């Protein structure tokens, strides 16, 4: 499974985490699962980047965490997007999409021309 996935671009982990938390309050594992599902398992975040990213985002004030009880009755740390984080998400999403569109335009047109796909 891990072997099939596309390596993540730098900076996109933060964006994905915030997007994951945009509509729900969940723990680290939940964020990970959401990313897998939302990207059709194309993108995978490993724990080594996920947790440091979560902590850093909290440190910046874009997330807050609190301890709660998970769906299987375990003590778990739940993350929530702050209003500040939401603004940040909006800004970064816009920026990333512009960037992605530009990249897509450039690469897809060229690649299409060469490979004929």
């Amino acid at each position: 499974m891990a072997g099939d996935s596309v390596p993540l671009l730098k900076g996109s982990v933060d964006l994905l985490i915030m997007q994951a938390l945009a509509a729900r309050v969940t723990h680290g594992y939940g964020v990970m699962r959401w990313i897998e599902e939302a990207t059709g398992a194309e993108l995978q975040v490993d724990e080594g980047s996920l947790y440091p990213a979560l902590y850093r985002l909290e440190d910046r004030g874009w997330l807050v965490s609190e301890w709660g009880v998970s769906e299987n009755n375990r003590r778990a740390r739940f993350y929530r997007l702050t209003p500040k984080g939401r603004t940040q998400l909006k800004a970064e999403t816009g920026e990333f999409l512009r960037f992605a569109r530009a990249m897509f335009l450039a690469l897809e047109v060229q690649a299409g021309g060469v490979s004929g796909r």
Partner: protein
Amino acid sequence: MREDTLWQRYWRYLSAGVRRDVDDELAFHVEMRANELQGHGLPADLARREAHRRFGDRTKIRATLHRIERKRGRRMTLSFLVQELMQDVRYGIRGLFKRPGFTLMTASSLALGIASTTVVLSLIDAYLLRPLPVKNPGELVVIGATNRANGSMVAGVLGLPTVRDIAARTDLFQGAAATTMITAAVRPAENDPADRGFFLGVTGNYFSVLGVSPSIGRMLTPDDDRQRERVVVLGHRMWSSRFGGDPAVVGKTIRLNTVEFVVVGVAPPEFRGTELLFDAAGFVPSGVVGILDQGAKDREARRDGGRFTVIARRQPNRTVADISSALGVLAEQIEAAYPEVGEQFRLPVFLESHARPNLPSAGWMIPVASVFATLALLVLLTASVNATNLILARGSTRATELAVRQALGASRGRLISQLLTETLLLALLSLACGWGLARLAVGALTSVPLAVDGLPLSWGVTLDLRVFGMTVVVTLLIGLLAGVGPALSASRFALQQRLREGGRAGLGRRGRRARSALVIVQVAASLVVLVCAGLFVASAKQAGKVDVGFRSDHLLTFGVDAGLAHYDQQTARAAFDRIEGAVARIPGTRSMVWANTVPIKKGAVGMSEVQGDGDARLGLFTAAVGPRYFEVLEMPVLEGRGFDVTDDSAHAGVVVVNRRAAETLWPGKSAIGKNVRLDRSGPPLEVIGVVKDSRYLVIAESPRPYLYRPLAQQYAPAVFLHIRTTVDAAGLIGPVRSAVASIDKDLAPFDVRTMDDVLDTSPNGTLVLRLGAAFVSVIGLLAVALTVVGLYGVIAYSVAQRTREIGLRMALGATRWTVVRSILADGGKLALTGITIGVIGAVLVSRMVGGLLVGSRSADAGIFTVVAIGLGLAALLSSYLPARRAARIDPLKALNDG
């Protein structure tokens, strides 16, 4: 390995929880993964192992997370602390404004303590601590000389040969210089008026030993000294006041005592010479001192009768004790080779900082400073205990507020920190007031003119950053001292007892008794000080009216010193006659006479031992005065006659004695016609008159024996003209000055003053009494202020403590008046005890200071009564305020609140 800082250790303790959280979070993650895998059909143990494998390097992730958390934690703790502090400060300021009475009382008490400590600190700093502005001042020592005859320490007595012997000891000293002080008249240019100033005659190595560099030009060198160059380095003050701070002065020729000197440099502003009280106008080579001061001419080469003091830089490895014993040996060798230095010749050595303000007071400053420091410390302690009482009194009235805050979740530490912040704010406020007060006090002190020989001295006392730093430390200490106790007790009792017992929180019975005792001591001490102040004030008043034995109004004096200019006896006498003639032409002068003394200012020039009838020998002070001196000064001649113009060198030697001398030497007989000898080999002098006793040296002295000689029979180069005027003497100061200046520019009149002014401002006149009166009055006011605040604090505290009890009594029918009376009685009891003890103390102390005072002590009873009643009233007033508050207590509320 590096030791953890305290902060790191503290953080490790805090972060234990954080670590556990990180571990829990990661464990949860693995568990969820294992669950999921199990859901896909894997067996439990395999699922767990797979989950762990997929997780990757758990240790590394954990370390990363810990690092991020740690950074965040630090930042949060810090900002949290800052926020708390800001809140405390806001809260504190609001609290201080809400209770202006309390704030005023406490701050004024603390401010008085801080101000008195600051003043004492500034004195200690100036006379003990502040290093000379030279290189490594700690290495400097000063050396004087003593012998059996002069006994105690004397400065300025070493001859240059002895100085050279000392300087040769390079095993002890890196260098040894010598200084002597001379008075010289400075004239910037030929036709300028002359100004007298203190000059230091210094050996050529003086500036290199001290390591002082010039502001402009150069300093003196050993060559200047060896070749007796007539060169001068000006003091910075003299340069800026008389030479307009003009750098072109270097190379110019100026006149010192009519001799031409070339200015070679200007000393830096901070260096004012090595004599603390004397602001050196300039420095000249020791080799030319004889040119400036005729008296020193033939003394330079002598072992005895020299005039130098050594200031030396010790070798770093030599202690003062080493040097002292080495110089002991040297002194013995000198004494053996040159017996003229006197028996038991010694060369005492002191650290420069221990020999201030001058060598004769060496080793004397430390005990004096300790006494003053102790006094200041006592005032400070009293002030801080007063503040403690006030804070306690307030603390117990607000204990309920604290209890509520604690109940709402404020921790004890939080309450303590808030109470401490309040106290420190109070301390800062007091610091501002105290510093202002101290500035006023030091300003008042240094504005008192001190003068020697008509030249002003500098106090050398300043309130600079050093003193301010010390004051800040003192303030913080006093703030903590006054605040910690109340903060601890208030916070401790706040919740537990306040809510349960109501209104009885606070320190125990012992604390209360200690506070009462302190107030009693305060009352007693203020009474003693106030009585002293009263005695001094009364005495100073009386001194203004004391019969000095001559008529001091309509009398003007000034001095001229022919020794400074090149006069011999004959030309000097001629010049004096010309001056007298010029003054006599000024309208408003009636008669005048020369003398080598001025009563009280320079009361005597010599002391002689005189043989009377039988074994009666008497040491008496002497003066040389001109014809009709007693008539001009209006001193009654009781027997015989005063001096006349015929009592000159061509006629037989005569003297006039005062009544005290006549009665002691020839009791029951007439003194007229008796002969006296002033020294064993001298000619017999006939007593021709007896005059009434007057005040000679000190205005407060009791009659002392005194002897006058005719000025014509004893030459004195420095003399004072006493002018009896028909108009206000002060109005003639200007005319006299210009009349004398027109005679000879080199004979500038100095210290032109009316006799009343002399009596008022001389150190031996009423100045000391008035200074003493002012000083004691200030201390007295300070004591009263502290006492009133102290009494108020204690009573207010006890009222606050007894709110419930008072409420109960009022509920049971006590009237407001009963309550007020009982509280006033509490204060009155304390005050009365203090006053009783104080009266006893004051009686003892007034006997001790009696010798310093002028006039009868008939006013004593009045002073005692006034002070005791005044203090009693002040005590009642300071208990009335809390009493009134007690009377306003609403019984219902008091009982319910409990």
